[in-house]
């Protein structure tokens, strides 16, 4: 296990693995998102309370899940980089931040559009919405902090620290609907016991979630290749990599 872990510290290995994985992730993302869209928009029955407006869940829930997943990946990669001094951890964290920020924005916009017909308002200072907005600010802070220093190594360390501190917001977002009175509905899938959805609605949702994860994997790998090249510009192996 440790051999595999140490391999991840090697920039040529990370670059090669990211290049090899990208097309697979893209194909899997295209397949799962296509199925999720067709099944969710055309074949899933309307919700008995929300009607067809519930179909927003097929982009809202996966983007919200991915906003948390990308943030956790960024924070864990930053922690690995700080603790074991593995530079590739900073590269993964830097690659993950803009993708996570875009998913957070998507979750906020789609949530707002779903809130209007269901709650009668586009925005409320509700615990779930507010903590998700704080997540967006954390992403913006991490991205800005990384580029605020002349010395990139200092920027990496500062961004990793902010990312780790901000990780406390992730369980707050997840459990906010349980801890406080919230307009937002409770967990539908990620909860103990049976999901409160029939299979015809649930399978497209799980497929969309899987598709968004594959898509995140593909974009992360592409950005990671760029990060590795930027950081290892002077290395000998880069000559072969950029000429291939």
């Amino acid at each position, binding site marked *: 296990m440790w051999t595999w872990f140490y391999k991840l510290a090697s920039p040529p290995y990370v670059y090669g693995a990211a290049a090899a994985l990208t097309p697979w992730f893209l194909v899997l993302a295209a397949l799962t998102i296509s199925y999720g869209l067709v099944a969710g928009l*055309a074949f899933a029955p309307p919700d008995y309370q929300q009607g*067809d407006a519930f179909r*927003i869940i097929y982009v809202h829930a996966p*983007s919200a899940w991915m906003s948390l997943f990308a943030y956790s990946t960024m924070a864990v990669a930053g922690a690995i980089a700080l603790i074991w001094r593995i530079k590739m951890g900073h590269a993964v964290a830097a690659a993950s931040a803009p993708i996570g920020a*875009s998913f957070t924005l*998507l979750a906020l916009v789609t949530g707002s*559009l779903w809130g209007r017909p269901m709650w009668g308002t586009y925005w409320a200072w509700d615990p779930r919405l507010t903590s998700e907005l704080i997540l967006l600010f954390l992403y913006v802070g991490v991205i800005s902090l990384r580029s605020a220093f002349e010395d990139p190594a200092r920027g990496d360390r500062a961004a990793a620290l902010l990312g780790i501190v901000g990780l406390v917001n992730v369980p707050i977002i997840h459990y906010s609907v349980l801890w406080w009175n919230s307009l937002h509905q409770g967990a539908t899938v990620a909860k103990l016991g049976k999901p409160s959805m029939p299979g015809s609605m649930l399978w497209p949702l799980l497929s969309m979630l899987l598709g968004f994860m594959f898509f995140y994997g593909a974009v992360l790998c*592409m950005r990671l290749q760029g990060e590795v*090249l930027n950081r290892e510009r002077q290395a000998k192996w880069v000559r072969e990599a950029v*000429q291939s």
Partner: protein
Amino acid sequence: VSSGFWSMGGYARFVWPCFAFACLVLAWNLWSARRYRAAARLRAMRSLLMAAGGES
């Protein structure tokens, strides 16, 4: 395709913008990641060319 599908039971003005924005975000992610990788590759090539020029 039936008009009922496009009208989304009267919620079309909320449902379709969500899916359109999702497409936009996914497309932006792909475009910006490819652009970032291409720019890094170009910078690395320039750096290698400059290093080769310095050696000769």
